[in-house]
């Protein structure tokens, strides 16, 4: 149906995602604020924070090794590279094959790995705690994500996201089968965990002992912290993009690439908005779970995913 995506388009989509990332965060914050009957900061606040951070100097712990300085760079690079795998404007495999959903998960895992390593570098309790908890949750999330991906991939016969999106096509909820519903449910359960939000993590706090991801950023400062923040924004939008590519319908194809791109962009924005709304709702209506309740929470997703797979395969 849709032709292949040229490499330039892929790069463009990647940068688009990077630029979009902070906006999504800001949007979610805004929606949360409104849901809590607050004015809240502007949706552009994350951009301002980043700009400020990149202008600041660096304060670094004296016990860190040479590694520490370069970690934000690699984390950002890995996350952004993951962005290159998300089909934004239209489906279809890239001309120059880069990778698939597994690679995407791998790159996100790499970013997480390096973040955790960096957190341990400075020494001190908070970084270690954050790293430990992050690395506790992540291995439980990954297999479920993998199974969700498989539950759609066994039909399409591939794990390449562009092809998957193209395969999903324009089919709307009516065209869904039970397996899709269950897979989507699993995905919705996983989403807060993968984006580091309530009920699994709490992005808004720093010195509270319940934190996971933020705790790892404690020793970063200035541009380094900026890279880390940008990386987490990007990671969030990439995850949402993954959901969109797997489950949500693509924009209807029209002739004329410019118009097509426009439509695709609009459709993508809409999808992201829906998911952002969902995240905001969840965050403002649930409380943070105890760390050792998280496995049970994820188990729900696991069961959904497994059932989805069973329905597909059996």
């Amino acid at each position, binding site marked *: 149906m849709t032709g292949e995506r040229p490499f330039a388009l892929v790069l463009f989509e990647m940068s688009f995602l990077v630029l979009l990332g902070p906006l999504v965060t800001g949007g979610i914050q805004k929606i949360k604020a409104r849901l809590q009957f607050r004015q809240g900061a502007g949706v552009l606040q994350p951009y301002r924070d980043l700009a400020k951070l990149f*202008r600041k100097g660096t304060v670094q712990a004296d016990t860190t*090794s040479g590694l520490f300085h370069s970690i934000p760079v690699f984390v950002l690079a890995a996350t952004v590279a993951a962005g290159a795998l998300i089909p934004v404007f239209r489906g279809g495999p890239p001309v120059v094959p880069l990778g698939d959903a597994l690679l995407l998960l791998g790159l996100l895992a790499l970013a997480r790995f390096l973040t955790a390593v960096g957190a341990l570098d400075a020494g001190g309790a908070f970084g*270690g705690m954050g790293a*430990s908890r992050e690395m506790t949750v992540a291995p439980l999330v990954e297999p479920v994500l993998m199974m969700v991906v498989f539950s759609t991939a066994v039909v399409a016969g591939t794990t390449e996201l562009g092809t998957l999106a193209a395969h999903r096509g324009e089919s709307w909820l009516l065209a869904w089968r039970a397996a899709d519903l269950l897979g989507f449910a699993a995905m919705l359960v996983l989403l807060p965990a993968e984006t580091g939000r309530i009920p699994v993590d709490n992005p808004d706090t720093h010195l509270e002992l319940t934190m996971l991801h933020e705790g790892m950023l404690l020793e970063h400062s200035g541009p380094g912290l900026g890279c880390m923040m940008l990386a987490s924004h990007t990671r969030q939008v990439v995850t949402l993009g993954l959901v969109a590519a797997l489950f949500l319908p693509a924009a209807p194809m029209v002739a004329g690439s410019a118009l097509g791109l426009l439509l695709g962009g609009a459709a993508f924005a809409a999808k992201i908005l829906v998911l952002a709304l969902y995240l905001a709702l969840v965050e403002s209506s649930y409380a943070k779970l105890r760390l*050792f309740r998280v496995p049970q929470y994820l188990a729900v997703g696991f069961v959904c995913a497994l059932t989805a797979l069973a329905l597909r395969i059996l």
Partner: protein
Amino acid sequence: MDVDPHLSLIAACYGAGALSSLLARWSGRLALGVGHFAALAGAVAGLCVSLGVLLGPPGRALTQTLPDLFPFARLSLAVDGLSAYFLLVISVVAIAASVYGPAYLRAHSPDAGPARQATQVLGLNVFLGAMVFLCCAGDALTFLLCWEGMTLASYVLIVSDDRDGENARAGLLYMVMAHGGTALLLVAFLALTERAGAFDFASLRAAAGELDGTTRGTLFFLALGGFATKAGVVPLHVWLPRAHPAAPSHISALMSGVMLKVAIYGILRFAFDLLAPVAGPLPPAWGWTVLTLGTTSAVLGVLYALQQHDLKRLLAFHSVENIGIILIGVGLAMIAWRRDEAGAALATVALSAALLHTVNHAAFKGLLFLGAGSVLCRTHLRNMEELGGLARRMPWTAGLFLLGAIAISALPPLNGFVSEWLTFQALLGGASRFRGPAGLGVVFSAAMLALTGGLAAACFVKAFGVTFLGRPRTPHAEQATEAPPSMIAGMVWLGAVCVALGVAPGYAMRLLDAPTAELLHGPGASAVLTARGPLVLSAAAGADATALSMPVLAALLVALAAMAWIVRRGWRRAPLRSVPTWTCGMSPTARFDYTATAFAKPLRLVFAVLYRPRRNVIRDSAGTPYVAQRIRYTGEVVDLAETQIYQRVQNAITALSRTLRARSTGRIHAYIAFVLAALLVTLLIFGVGPR
């Protein structure tokens, strides 16, 4: 058959190395140098030979007859694609080990006497030679002799490393389990040789052709038992985490990186070559057993690794995990293999994944063990709770260890990711091909594989972070210095292999052609996987198959990193202040750092069912219960297989024999009565003949 000079060259190198142990009579240092150099030469020769076979014209196998040592069997060597591939794996690690060895041995045990050094040189060369010729064996007897030689040499290396009881016990357990495995292998092999009336593999193949299903299955499972013991498959793994750490580190690298793979070689040789039915697929039970074993080993291996605080022990448990991953690929290949087109293609993907992971694991596990060895010989500590802060003191070692850690955690852009990606793709292909419960089972093991990957990442964040980062926790770690250059060189070689296989795997597929084509009678790896050029790996033959392009990814990552670096530096150089770590205002000490135990604690609680963790807290409060002066916490996890199976069996046997011995009398009348009774019984049973 063409008698081949290259094999003799390899033999000559290792033989010379073994003999050079005699030099220790005059100078242990000299013996170490010469012995390891000979090993290096042998490894390089092996590398060349294997490349020659793998890249040479297809179907060409080196063969060589050995002198007739035993009247009842003709010994011979035959190097086909599979043998050559494993020869390659062995040589890759052997090069690093023999470069790394001398400096390590000198630095680790400077007080070692010449006898010990001679033993170590002899052991190393015999060990390597045995493994090489095991993979090149052309007949059962050579195979068995090399198999036992390998075991014996590694045993000697283990017990000779350190004179304390721990090594002796580890060696004992290792030797006993290896012997049990060998017993199974003996039966499997001899059952074939007795049918064939000869020992060479060709006749065995022919003899296996006439076997009926049950015998064939029995033989396979016997052999599988034997090889699985050597490979450290759960629940036969208990010897591994004891024996591997006990050896000198470069030997640990060889044992974990290579010796286990030799068992994989055996399984492949038996399943696809010797015992494979002439027509039709392998019995499904074989493949499913291997797949199940692999999945179990992968998950349990990494779970137990997670709770280890002894660096080398942790690595050893990870070998269990990776063997599991390899076996997943092998098992899937066995299930999927049909003589038709699609079956062959899927099996090819699965087998290529397994073989690729074999060499990958050899590379990064070798690298990690060598890194651990550098830490060990500089700090004489293996418990990571006592280390820390080494990244500032041993930057090279730290960097290379991190490289290995990323690779073994199956993270892009390194080699571990590539082989696991292939495994995933094979599993997915299997799922969409089989359908039904079979497909679900395959997908489930894929999910378990994902879990394994995540846990491995967690485990190595812990291992690297606690060992190399933060503050040094003991004076030993405080005073550590960088390892000598030759050891660094050994590690750099393996690191380079990891990067190369990660960034440009397409070119490595060429090496997999010969083994896959021979075993599966299929198109060969590169025909399927690099159908779209060496830059792109594709998961199936078709043009629309899922593809992965590591070179492009690597380029993208580098570019992005460069851009991020520029952004980070900012327009003007921002000032950099260095201050103590934030510890809520207290003056930070090493005691603030997160310990390995604490790091692994959440997962320990999550998987408490498998760990059966024991903890006891000693809290001595000075009189009043409100003030605690010091609190000591000790916790441990148990290995279920060990406690539930092995210890029980051992206790039962020991108790039985103790009681028997205690009850036995020393009275001569009993002796006489036994003789009399024996005679009467024998007469009654055998004496009364047909009337």
